[in-house]
Structures are given as structure tokens and as C-alpha cells.
């Protein structure tokens, strides 16, 4: 199939960006979306031009690096699918596809479609862990955990930190990302000791990074490539309230 692509190009964080139009020919429906971009980039290199910069690594939907906004949707049209797992079967001959980077103040553009998501790392640094040094652990089976709790915790822990939730939210809120981590750890007995300070510190950091507030539109859940449930945000709010009412304060 032959396609027209309108792609956001921006030299660096300081410069003004804009859309460029490209056409690609003989794209196979078997290709992944990023392989179609590989074809375009090879074409640009042969024309002596700079290829389009974008984040990608594992290309199997798990590392969370890829991050394109495709035709107005984070990771494109397929439900619960990262850009690297989106295949060209989703498009038809003659289509025009618009590709933008994530748009959020807390994710500044580095170049073209690549953005800086280190704000997510700083949210984790604020408390997204259990403080246990190597060697402290007791035998793993000394701590039985009910299967439903373990499964629920696991479901939250499958977040890949790609940032689609932020990109999809009209407020650019990181609530789904943050809530997934809070839920993952709050659902486990190991996470109990730091439960209150964790949620307060992480929310505090989210605010400092310039992410917006959650207004429950549900766009994050709809676009999340891993199907992280918005119920985690409900849990986040409950945890936050519980910590606040108990008189705990952020450090």
C-alpha cells in the first residue's frame, strides 16, 4: 500500500517544530508500524536527509520506549497495543497518517518524536519502592499472599511506564502511572510499612513535575496499551486520603 505521512519534526528542545509530509510506497500489511518508519528513514537517508528520531527498543510491547501519537491516539488505533506492536494491517492504501510526539509539559520534546520522560523516574524515586536492602529477606514462602491480592498487584505492576496515559489526558495527569505503582505496592503486605509516606511523597513529586490533576475522564485507561485499570486511581485516592487523615505528611 502507498501512504502519506505527516510527521512532527523538531531539531531539539529549544527549536520550533512543525509537520513535514512524506510519502511511502509498497508498504506490506505484515510490517509493524515502526518497520514502516524504518522504510521511511532508509528513504530519507538515501536522499541525504536526516531520518526521523523516535524512541523504540524491544519492539515486542514490553519495554515502554515507543511513544507515538498516531492519528490523535496514543500508540494508534489498536486497543491495548503499543506502537511497536501495531501492524500495517490497521491501515489501507491511500491513507494519510498523522504522527506526533507525546504532548505534555512534563515530557519536553528532545527531538522529533522523542520526548524526555525522566519525570517518571523521579516519581518512582519519591517512594515507588520497598525499602529493603539486599540480604534482608526472609524465606519467600514465610509470607503467604492470597492469590487474588497477588494477581491484582501483578496487574497493576504490568505498567510499562510509556506515558500514553499522560499523552491521552487533557490535563496531562500522571495519575494512572502513579496509581499503578501505589496499588502494586499497597496490595502487598511487604509494602505496608511505607504505605502512607509513599503515596504522599509520590503525589507531591507528580505535582512538582508539572503533571496536571485527574478529572476522571477515563482517557488514560482507554488508551493504555497494557490495560491498566482506572480502579487503581480510585485506590490511589483512597490511599492518599487515608494517609492524610492519619496525620502523615510528605517529607
Amino acid at each position: 500500500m502507498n501512504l502519506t505521512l505527516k510527521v512532527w519534526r523538531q531539531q531539539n528542545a529549544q527549536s520550533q517544530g512543525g509537520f513535514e509530509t512524506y510519502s511511502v510506497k509498497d508498504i506490506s500489511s505484515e510490517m509493524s508500524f515502526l518497520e514502516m518508519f524504518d522504510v521511511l528513514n532508509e528513504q530519507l537517508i538515501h536522499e541525504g536527509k536526516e531520518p526521523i528520531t523516535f524512541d523504540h527498543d524491544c519492539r515486542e510491547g514490553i519495554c515502554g520506549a515507543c511513544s507515538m501519537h498516531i492519528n490523535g491516539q496514543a500508540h494508534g488505533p489498536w486497543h491495548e497495543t503499543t506502537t511497536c506492536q501495531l501492524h500495517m494491517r490497521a491501515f489501507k492504501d491511500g491513507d494519510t497518517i498523522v504522527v506526533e510526539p507525546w504532548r505534555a509539559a512534563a515530557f519536553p520534546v528532545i527531538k522529533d518524536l522523542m520526548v524526555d520522560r525522566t519525570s517518571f523516574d523521579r516519581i518512582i524515586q519519591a517512594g515507588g519502592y520497598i525499602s529493603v536492602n539486599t540480604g534482608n529477606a526472609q524465606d519467600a514462602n514465610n509470607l503467604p499472599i492470597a492469590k487474588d491480592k497477588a494477581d491484582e498487584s501483578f496487574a497493576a505492576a504490568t505498567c510499562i511506564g510509556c506515558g500514553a496515559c499522560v499523552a491521552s489526558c487533557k490535563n496531562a495527569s500522571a495519575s494512572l502511572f502513579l496509581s499503578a505503582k501505589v496499588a502494586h505496592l499497597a496490595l502487598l503486605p511487604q509494602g505496608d510499612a511505607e504505605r502512607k509516606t509513599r503515596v504522599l511523597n509520590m503525589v507531591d513529586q507528580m505535582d512538582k513535575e508539572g503533571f496536571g490533576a485527574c478529572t476522571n475522564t477515563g482517557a488514560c485507561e482507554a488508551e493504555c496499551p497494557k490495560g491498566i485499570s482506572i480502579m487503581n486511581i480510585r485506590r490511589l485516592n483512597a490511599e492518599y486520603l487515608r494517609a492524610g487523615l492519619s496525620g502523615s505528611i510528605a517529607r
Partner: protein
Amino acid sequence: MSLNSKIPAGELSQKWSLYKNNCKIVNPANKRSLEVIVIGTGLAGASAAAALGELGYKVKAFCFQDSPRRAHSIAAQGGINAAKNYQNDGDSVYRLFYDTIKGGDYRARESNVHRLAEVSANIIDQCVAQGVPFAREYGGMLSNRSFGGTQVQRTFYAAGQTGQQLLIGAYQALERQVALGNVTMYSRHEMLDIVKIDGKARGIIARNLITGKLERHFGHAVLICSGGYGNVFYLSTNAMGSNVTAAWKAHRQGAYFGNPCYTQIHPTCIPVSGDHQSKLTLMSESLRNDGRIWVPKKQNDNRKASEIPEDERDYYLERRYPAFGNLVPRDVASRAAKERCDAGYGVGTSKQAVYLDFAAAVIRYGTIECSKHGNHNPSADEVRKYGLAVVKEKYGNLFDMYAKITGEDPYEVPMRIYPAVHYTMGGLWVDYELMTTVEGLYCLGEANFSDHGANRLGASALMQGLADGYFVIPYTLGNYLADDIRTKAIPTDHPAFVAAEKEVEGRINQLMNIKGKQSVESIHKRLGLIMWNKCGMGRTAEGLKEAILEIQALKKEFWSDVFIPGTVEGMNNELDKAQRVADFIELGELMCKDALNREESCGGHFREESQTPDGEAQRNDEEFMYVAAWEYNSDSNWTLHKEELKYDVVKPSQRSYK
């Protein structure tokens, strides 16, 4: 230089304890003034950086990705082994040790593998304490499954995303140390050289991939934890960015490269669909617990799978290896698939695939479920409905991934699979302490050669990465640094740093100034084809000699005709890639030379000249029971050093899974 593996004296099962009792220790106040550089933040790097930060060392960690959480350990699916014997099925430290040595076709060091088995149980404890949500039974206890090459259930898992959960555990531990100020994280940085002063590794030159600027970093010791080099084949299950550059620079600075030709070709990957393909996707080995592998009994059979009756199917693994069946180790399963396809029994349009079929498992599980629901005379539809639900719970994410990539529904038709490059057992040679042949330069995880011999068993890579990082390096590094407490941080205007930076800068400028016509990607693809065809699943002396010449020619072409757009300043992914491919080309040549030297078949290394009458790998213990450690002299020129392997406890025998 002769190789000293520094294996401690004493009985095998006591070596590690004795070592820990006797190794030197750095006191906490001194640790604060000792700096350690860690390259790579996968399971080995993140766990090492976190554990060393916890001890109080000043750690600088580097990764080329935008966040340490993206390292390719994240993609590991199946699980992690540990000798817990929670299933009461006869597992023990000794049995895990024995299986790993045997699985590696008697080409790994006994002492290292025994230590790995010893610390395996601590890893599970540590990960659970960190909040890693492993799969559990209804009683709240941890669940286990079996994996290829073993007869006990010792694999811990988190659905098909075990690597993700373990890496996030290590990542969180690492970020905690970042928050505490013990670790400084440098993401989007690539290590481009080791700086040596008085023969010791004392720092690195790294490139900030956003600004393009070169940086000098000092460390009392440097740890390479940069993963495997499967991307030398272009197509592999590795991430696009996975590369050999850090390890290769270390090699050029004097670190010997151990067993470079030992490559693991994983039997169950989604087959190649066309020339556009940029990578291959693994379907976890755990699928072989329930899937049966078959091809048609008739050559060039073009019927659909559903049209081929049961008695016209060849379940060739069950036929050839009745004791292990579909659970034979990876090297055996891969070769058997290649043998069938080469003989004309392959399926799918490319005929380079075999079926992995879940129909029998659906019926088996469905019958059990119906029985649980009190339905002892269920219809075929009822059985299928319940059976599908069980298969979905166990493997749902893998089936979904398969459907997205191929456009086929694996619940309806059998999966098509074919072997693909997955893991590299070779890597930088290290001694018992994980130190390379350069003093103060260590290598951990997949990047080193140490624990898997010629073939890695499933669910052992995660175990090794975390063992090295959490439980080995914190002891062995202290033993080295204890003698270095008087060394003050060396300023980075030292002539060695200046010279190293100049060298790196010169190489980058040389690449940018070639201004040829071919893209980096196109040359990488050609390298991959040479490697896959001549240094892949089956190798011959003739093919390897040809490959060496072809790679040397390709290298000339690369250095005279590659085109890198853009500039040295600012972000330039093509330049990053070009530097990696330049190193892959050099590595490819060494791999072929190593493969040529090893005139035997062992594990993942199959020399067609060396096979038994029934087509199994034929080892030659008389002549080749050694680690091939290659010393870099100059361009295309290496010296081979041999570390003889001594088996005091296990008696090497021809592997049999029949």
C-alpha cells in the same frame, strides 16, 4: 599472560562459603570514598548498582535507554530458576548445579555454576521482599512450573512477564539508591571506551546521546553489565539497541573474550515474514509445557494444519526424544526443527516453520475443568470452552502477541514457530571473582561468558544476572577495593583520560567523514545474513572460512562507503548505530574464528563435521574441554588462550535426552 581463574581451594560445595569467610572487606567509612562505574542497567547492572549503593559505595550507573527500566531484561518471559524444592519433587542445590552443567554440555566452570545454584534461593527471597508479584497458588504460596532440560518444577514466574517484574524490582531498588544519593544515574549515555591507568581500569569515556558531547568519568573499578551480542545476527530476539560496544571496547583494551561462538538459538520464535523484518519475537519456552511440536509426515505438504489427520503428523521431538519429548533443551529442539525444515517438511508459506499445537492441552485441561464442575460426560464443545479458558489464563499475553504479529488466531490454528538467535553464552572472560583480564574491570550477567557453558537452560539467564549483581559482586568487588582505599579519585584531566577521549573523538569524526552511499542498517543486515548462514545453527569449516573473508570485505566497505547523516553535535541515532555496527563487524569475525577453531559440536555450537551416526552433536572432550579466551592484538589479529575445564564432581558424558 596466563589465565588465572582464581577458583578457591576446597570442596566444591564449600568454595563460596570459604571465599566469603576469607575475602577482604572495606569498612563503611572507606566505601564512601570509593567510586564504582556500572555500565548497563538490566538485571545484572541494576542489581549490582543497587546492592553496591546500599553498601555505601559511590556508584555511577549508565544506560543508553531513556530510563534504566527499559533494559532488555524486561522482555524475558518464562521465569527464573531457584533450588527451593518447594514442590517436594527432589530438587536441591546439587541438582540445579548438575542440570546447568549438563545443559551447558560440560563447557562451564563447576565452581561458578555451583555458586549460582547456591545463591539462587536467596534471589527469590530478595525479589519477594522487594514486592515482585510472582504467581501464587490459592493457599498463598509461590507457584512453580517446569522448563526445558529439567525434570523438576523449579521455575518461578509472573505470567509471561517474569523479566519485567524482576527488572522493575531491581529498578526500584536502584531508584531508591538514586533518591538516597548513593547512585548517580546517567541515562541516554553510551560508554565508548575504558580508561586504563597503570594497567588498571580507572574510568570511562561516555557520550551523552542527547547533546553528543563526550564525557570523562572516573571510577576505582568499572563493571560491564551490558548484556549479550545477539544483534550481530541483525535479526534476533534482542532489543533494537542491544549491542556489544561496551564489552568490545573492553576487549580491545585487554579483556579477553571467552567462547564468542557460543550462541543460543531459541526454538520457539515467530518465523520471519519478509525482508522488512527488523527483529524477531520469542514465544516463551513455557509454551512447550503444553504445546506439542509437529510437522506433516509428507514432504512439501501444502494442506492446512486442520486438514492433516492425526496419523499423518510427525511429533518429531516426542519420536526422537521419548524421555524429554517437547521439553528437550533449546539447542536440541532448535536443531531438530532445522533438520525437519531442511529435509522439506516445513510448514507455512516460507516452509521455514514448524507447528506448535495446543489442541491436546485444550482437551486435557477442558476435561479436568468439566470434572471439577461436576460434568463427567461433557460434549466436545464444553471441553473446548473450559480448556481454552485455562490456556488463556496461562499464556494469554503470548497468544495475543502472536495474533497481533501474524494476524492469525492461535486459539484456532496451531502457532508456526522457527528458531531464532536469542542469547549469547559467550562474553568477556572473567575469573571466579567476575574480574576480566584487566585489573579492576569486571563483567556481569549475559555480557560475561561464565555460567552457561555451550548452551543455557531456560530460566537461567535471569538467575545469573541477579546472582552476579545482588550476591556475588558485593563480595568480590570488596576483595579488590580493600587494597585500593588509599587511591584518591583521579582527576579526569589525567593524560590517560585526555588521550582516551581524543581517540574516541577521532573515531567518531572518521565515521562522519566517510560520507559514502550505504546506510548503516543495510550493512548491518548483510553482516547478519553472513552470520546466520555460516555461523548460525549449523557450521562447517568451509563456510566459516568463507564468512571470515566476507566479513573482512564488508568491514572495508563499511569504513569506505557508509553514510551517516546529521552532525556530531546533538542527537544522532544513525551515528550511535554506526558505532555499534562497526563493533559488531569486528566481533563477527572473531566469532567465526572461534567457531572454526572449535572442531567439535557442543551445545549451541554445532559443527556439521562432528556428529553421531543418528545426527546428534558429537563433543570432543579430549581436545576441546577448554574455554577459548581470545586476546586482541590488532585488527583481525587475536591470540587464543585456553582455560582447561576440570570436572571434579560431575562426570562429563554424552548428553542424552532420549
